[in-house]
């Protein structure tokens, strides 16, 4: 098999839209269950160290927001430090 004839082969399982759709839905369902679990009194921390920990979905919100921030803000770093791939080869 050459590197070029893969376009005619069947897409792999991970590339099938049906798999991607169900994977994403499953992920959201898992996330919702995890968030709802935060509301169960018996499963909450008895002696929280910070008031913010008492918000049942705090970790979900913080995780989502942190990831979004890292990707959306972080990509602008490229403008500051990004150079051509052979940047050092030319200079050393």
């Amino acid at each position: 098999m050459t590197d070029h004839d893969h376009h005619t082969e069947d897409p792999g399982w991970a590339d099938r839209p049906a798999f991607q759709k169900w994977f994403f839905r499953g992920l959201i369902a898992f996330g919702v269950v995890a968030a709802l679990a935060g509301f169960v009194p018996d499963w909450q921390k008895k002696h929280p160290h910070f008031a913010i920990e008492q918000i049942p979905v705090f970790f979900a919100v913080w995780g989502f927001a942190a990831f979004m921030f890292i990707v959306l803000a972080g990509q602008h770093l490229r403008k500051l430090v990004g150079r051509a791939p052979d940047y050092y080869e030319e200079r050393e």
Partner: protein
Amino acid sequence: MGASDLFAALAINPAVILSIGAALIALVPNAQAQLRRPLMLAVVAISAFQLTRLGLGTWGDLVIFGEPVTMLRIDPLARMFAVVFHIAAALLIIYGWHVRDRAQDFATLAYPAAALGGVTSGDLVTLFVWWEVAAITSVFLIWAPGTRSTFLSGMRYLMIQVFSGTLLLAGVVLTYRETGSLAFNEIGLTDETGAIKASGLAMFVAFGVKAAFPLLHNWVQDAYPKSTLTGTIVLSIFTTKLAVASLARGFAAEPALIYIGAVMTIFPIFFALIENDLRKVLCYSINNQVGFMVCAIGFGTINGAAGYAFGNIIFEGLLMMALGAAVFRTGTSMATELGGLYRTMPLTMGLCIVGALSISAFPGTLGFVAKGLIIDAAAESHNLWIWLVLLFASAGVLEHAGIKIPFFTFFAHDSGKRPQEAPTHMLIAMGLAAFLCIFFGVQPQYLYALMPEPEALADYHSYTPYHVIEQLQLLVWATIAFGVLKVMKWYPAEIPSTNLDTDWFYRIPGRGLLFWAVDATKAVWSIAWEGMRVRFNDAMARIYAVHGPEGQLARAWPIGFMALSVAATLALALVFALAV
């Protein structure tokens, strides 16, 4: 101290056993190169047996030049690092079973031996010796590809490592002057009045260079990815963890480490996001992961630091090995050139995902049971901002190590590459690492039993409902964020590029300054030389004018002048004689 005492002290030391093994294996001729790896594995087994046989205690208490030293100390802290160093060395030997390179085979044993010697040293002189040996043996792995670029990178690496060694030596001397002892115990950054000690500062920076503190970190990304495929993985494990063990012993509960560690967990995330070379992404991940350990030392949770180092060596090693297998089969580690390998490398993909889940600290993995100790220590210190930073950084770990590595290697856009599955020996090494990730994840008591302060863990339970729920909320919703970013096409495309980091300062302006200084020195020297040459020639011309064949002094003098000079000399002698 007799020679026999020294010999006995050396022979008992597992690090010496590994070092001698490395030297002997280097003597195996190239025609029998296939024997080297089985022999290396046997040497690691002998060293591990010796470590087990010795148990806890100190050995090699000698007096050298009138000073007592302890060449081998195996306490619970040293043992935890020693055990995981042996596991890592064995896995790396299996992983690199195909390698037939004398220098790499030597370094793959000698360098872990030096790191082992460092963590088990009971005095500062022994630590310094192993510290330097680790620098020198590891550079062979960076030079192994044999290109100009790797040579230059190796020289930069060596310079930085030797700088750390020199600072350590200064710290040892200053500590000896202050305390009169060479024992390696708590050092501390400040004295009882709160003033910073020169000895403590020198050691702190020496350890900090090797631990890759912020702004001192870039030798990792500069040197490690330039090594060979297996060399990079060997390098990624030992140096920074030797520094973590040393910081844990010398600077436990030092508040500055909390903030240094927190910065270390954050900034590499952003560099890893925009980095196209996935081996470099994992090098930024090393900085980030060591940040968690440094933070743990700052909080005084040595269990957290040592436990996370133990875990990180296994799961970060697993990620490195899985990526390495993809590089071995495709010849590239660029995200832009990889992708879609899950079709033909499903086992490597599965093992990579175990590593990714573990480094992200999903419940059920080694990462979860180790990282929980650090996050809890941050909460117990009631330091809200640091606690939030560590949670933020945990989402960042998921982004660059948990998702980016497996996603861009095995999924993402189809590169069209259809390589074979990884070789069997690589699969065995990765399989063992993945097994350990899950084994310690579901049976954390075995990890906790190894920890330096087991009594501090008496009331600690990893799998409380709130620990699991908090972690799942954080990680699953961060993963959903990734899905949203991909669906909305907001996730940045990978671009082939070089991203500048702190090494730019010494590679471009620093190099320019150095060359300017060389040129300036040359110019000053030629001006000075020219000036001297002109003056010398003038002087010679004048002497020639007086003494040369045509000169005044070359003339024939009359006898009367001679008699007059003798009379004048005698008169002068008479005056002196009368005066005295």
